[in-house]
């Protein structure tokens, strides 16, 4: 046993070394983004480049809001995030419906829901655009929000979790005279807190990052999201890398902060969903 632990020390050092080296390699883009975003425009193009800015400045970040409409993009993005939480509630309700009720055609409908996961986004992209166009919803916030509300994978995860809630508990509440929606909001939702946490974080990230659909639907700059605005910035200020990096950092850093607070839940979420 003594021999084994001695060997393990070297092994452990090697594993940690590779892990740290790989981790640094993976983080280079992030480090470079943060460092460049604080550089003045002249320094960002200087060769050899500096890792820590010589003359750190906040001008790039200020520019985002004064020369670009990042305040508007931020507001639109937050509106999308807000409504995607309404979608999350719909998905949770559907998950509960499939998990805890027996009704005619339940399994069939559930399989259809699962089947929609296999349809590639490229196939539905064009007809959904045509549909929204026929409804007069192109170039509106509603048109951007509506198609992303229901997520089959999310319904699936909610259902998986909610089947584990004991029937007796719900039955007991019914005998006490509780209504079905009262049971859902007051009994089921608190029990399902962990899955709501995971889905909430993932929903936030997806909403915050939403790009393609806003790009297709929105013609007016007043409807652009942060991602669309950032790609616009890349086109307009092609050589102002400092400004580009500030824009990127403005999008990435909030997600990193939220993620580092909640990463435990995300990892648990995968174990919970039974993908093992």
């Amino acid at each position, binding site marked *: 046993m003594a021999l084994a632990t001695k060997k393990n020390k070297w092994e*452990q050092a090697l*594993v*940690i070394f590779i*892990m740290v080296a*790989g*981790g640094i390699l*993976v983080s*280079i*883009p*992030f480090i*470079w*983004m943060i460092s460049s975003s604080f550089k003045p425009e002249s320094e960002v*193009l200087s*060769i050899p*480049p500096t890792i820590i800015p010589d003359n750190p400045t906040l001008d790039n970040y200020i520019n985002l809001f004064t020369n670009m409409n990042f305040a508007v993009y931020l507001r639109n993005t937050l509106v999308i995030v807000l409504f995607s939480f309404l979608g999350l509630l*719909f*998905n949770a*309700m*559907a998950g509960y*419906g*499939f998990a805890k*009720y027996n*009704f005619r055609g*339940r399994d069939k409908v559930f399989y*259809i*829901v699962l089947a*929609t996961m296999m*349809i*590639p*986004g*490229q*196939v*539905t*992209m*064009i*007809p*959904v*655009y045509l*549909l929204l*166009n026929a409804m007069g919803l192109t170039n509106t916030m509603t048109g951007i929000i*509506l198609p992303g509300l*229901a997520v*089959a994978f999310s319904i699936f995860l909610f259902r998986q979790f909610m089947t584990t809630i004991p029937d007796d508990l719900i039955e007991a509440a019914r005998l006490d005279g509780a209504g079905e929606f009262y049971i*859902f909001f007051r009994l089921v939702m608190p029990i399902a807190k962990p899955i709501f946490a995971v889905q909430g974080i993932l929903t936030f*990230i997806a909403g915050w*990052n939403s*790009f393609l659909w806003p790009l297709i639907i929105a013609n007016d700059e007043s409807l652009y999201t942060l991602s669309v605005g*950032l*790609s616009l910035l890349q086109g307009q200020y092609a050589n102002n*890398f400092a400004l*580009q*990096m500030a824009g*990127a950092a403005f*999008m*990435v850093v909030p*997600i990193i902060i939220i993620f580092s607070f909640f*990463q435990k839940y*995300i990892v648990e979420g995968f174990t919970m969903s039974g*993908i*093992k």
Partner: protein
Amino acid sequence: MKLKNRHPYMFISPAVLLLSLFSLIPILIAFFISFTDMNLKGLADWSSVSFVGLENYQSLFADDKFIKSIFNTIFYVIIGVPLVIICSLSIALLLNYGTSKLFTMFRAVYYMPSITNIIAVAVIWGYLYNTEYGLFNYLLSLLTVENVPWLQEPTIAKISLIILAVWKGIGINMIIFLAALQGIPKSYYEAAEMDGANRLQVLFNVTLPLLRYATFFVTVTTLIGWMQFFEEPFVMTDGGPLDGTISIALFIYKEGFQFSEFGYAAAASFVLFAMIILVTMIQFKFRKSDTEY
């Protein structure tokens, strides 16, 4: 009792109706318009749309750009998918080695790229890949390597996009492998150790076989994802240079939303759909033969 039966439908209907409207009905519409010459003119006036039979499908396979996009997509899949699986599995094995705070911290570091916004990623990597001012060429110049045209030469550009996509794709698969690794009972390792198996033997005879299900899951989802390779070429190269990085998904987007050839694009999307179904079915078939382990 009758009244109670209404409730399940009240719970499922919002999500199910939205899904039908934006997932199921569209697939029927897409199938229908793939046999028509639906374009911008048809959008304003439906009566100008006419049925063209299989014409869209025929002209697709005579379209050099489409053939090129198929070739590029195969290139992305063949190089990218194995790379993602090998990298994410290796990192998962590394992270599974210890349980200290350091390992948890690095788990977050490796996961980070996968939740990062694709546009931000493209902007950052565009700067890193920049021929004159980019960090990569600067670092290579220290090794006296001449400037690499990261995004200006078709084959190098494809590889550059793959590097970026692998970097972004590792996180989620690594987590799945990690969850699977943590599900392997300790007693298996103890038994192998008692039998005198060395590290490599344990890896190949205990760990990897037990990761079979996770590997299958990761392979299927990664393959489907890479067949729809879209955002990376879309934001970094717009399919160029000389259509060298255009993928099938990007081809569909361009035909649909840049040239407004909705019928043609819908036909292309069904070709992609058919390819995805075919590849997925082959994998499931392939798997069945070795389920009895």
